[in-house]
């Protein structure tokens, strides 16, 4: 049961990575996608990131009841959890909702209104033209969004910690600086790239094989989000297991 869709997904990817008919047209599409995925998601990623950091600080402070542990630990915890898990994974889940559903409904609508057939008739490799720019756009911009998310999350943590008095600014900054393992950042970027690939390809697959009408387009886009989220968490676990 599960092998048939998986095979179809692989075949679709094979078609996506055929040589483009004309690079200049693809390049323009890639910039368009980078704008819509990257710039278009900046706002929502920024807001959630500040709150992610803030919540982490408050909850860590709440759990640190022992006086033996210095408060500066909070800074380190906010930094590591933002980099390793919160920023890449929560951003990916939010983007699966925002970008995934739009990719799937856009391609699904083109399918049911025969626009994909029209591309095919012209002799255009429709999976390549429609999906490749989205994959590249996402794989480039989502890691950048995650970097911004990490910065804002730490900033949110700093803000919440100092405003609530849970930790002094100096302690927080001390914690931030001590014990940083650069490799965690690498892991974070690897995750972001994998998540970006999952979001766009899973959603494009759901849209590309939509059959029927507008009702089915809606169903496909819901399914795109649900499957993307599950795949993101599975991939999250696997990368953590393999890399850490």
């Amino acid at each position, binding site marked *: 049961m599960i092998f048939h869709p998986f095979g179809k997904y692989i075949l679709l990817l094979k078609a996506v990575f055929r040589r483009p008919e004309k690079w200049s047209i693809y390049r323009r599409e890639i910039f368009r996608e980078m704008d819509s995925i990257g710039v278009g998601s900046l706002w929502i990623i920024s807001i959630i990131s500040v709150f992610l950091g803030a919540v982490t600080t408050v909850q860590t402070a709440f759990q640190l009841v022992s006086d033996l542990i210095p408060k500066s630990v909070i800074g380190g915890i906010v930094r590591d959890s933002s980099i390793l898990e919160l920023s890449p994974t929560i951003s990916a889940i939010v983007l699966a909702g925002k970008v995934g559903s739009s990719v799937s409904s856009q391609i699904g609508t083109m399918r049911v209104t025969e626009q994909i057939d029209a591309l095919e*008739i012209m002799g255009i490799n429709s999976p390549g033209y429609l999906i490749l720019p989205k994959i590249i756009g996402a794989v480039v911009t989502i890691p950048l969004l995650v970097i911004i998310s990490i910065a804002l999350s730490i900033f949110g943590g700093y803000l919440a910690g100092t405003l609530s008095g849970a930790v002094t600014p100096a302690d927080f900054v001390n914690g931030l600086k001590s014990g940083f393992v650069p490799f965690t950042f690498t892991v974070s970027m690897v995750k972001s790239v994998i998540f970006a690939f999952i979001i766009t390809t899973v959603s494009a697959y759901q849209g590309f094989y939509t059959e029927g009408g507008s009702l089915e387009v809606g169903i496909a886009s819901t399914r795109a989000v649900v499957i993307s989220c599950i795949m993101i968490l599975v991939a999250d676990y696997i990368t953590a297991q393999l890399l850490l």
Partner: protein
Amino acid sequence: MIEIQDIHKIFGENHVLKGISAKFEAGMNNLIIGGSGSGKTTLLKCMVGLHEPDEGHVIYDGRDFTRMNFEERIEIRKEIGMLFQSSALFDSMTVEENIMFPLNMFTTQNKKDRMERVNFCLERVNLEGKNKLFPSELSGGMKKRVGIARAISMQPKYLFVDEPNSGLDPKTSIVIDELINEITDEYNITTVVVTHDMNSVMGIGENIVFLFNGQKEWEGSNKEIAHTDNKELNDFVFASKFTQAAKDKL
């Protein structure tokens, strides 16, 4: 010339096409007619490879399309123009961008030449000056005409047209028929038109294939159709009392 041999298409339990063979000559208006749901669109889509026929062959000037691989098919498709029943315009692009799209993708012409070609095609379908409108701002008939303009922008060798007249007023409808007729003659295109429209059948039908029950029930020209004694065809073409009376006068 396009030749189809023994085309079968089955959707689940529904045996839509039960072995259809025909020849469509270049420079000729080839019409496929038949009742709603008789499989006209399905036959057209089998011919261009949007549906895989379950059996049979489609041969473009001696080249067997059904046996070709992806790259070979792409080459044939660059010679094909098609108007879809639903028009299938790219709704994120303006009229101009729709028509220019295949030119951008496959030609090395400069912007000015491409623009000229777009305007020429728009003029031919009586839509000059509508360049900047989006498909959502067009009426159904205008969409059809933009669809035709897009289909002819690359000067196809083979032109497939699915219901060019549905949703058009009689006058525009005749303009479109004449356009199809003209370009077919002018560039010696192999044109296949699916239609319900009896004006078109009588007006431009040089070679007519009548589908009934998944089979080719009748084949002939518009001159022959008036004198046919095929019952199914008669019932289909001269369905109304008005047309029946007109026929009796012939």
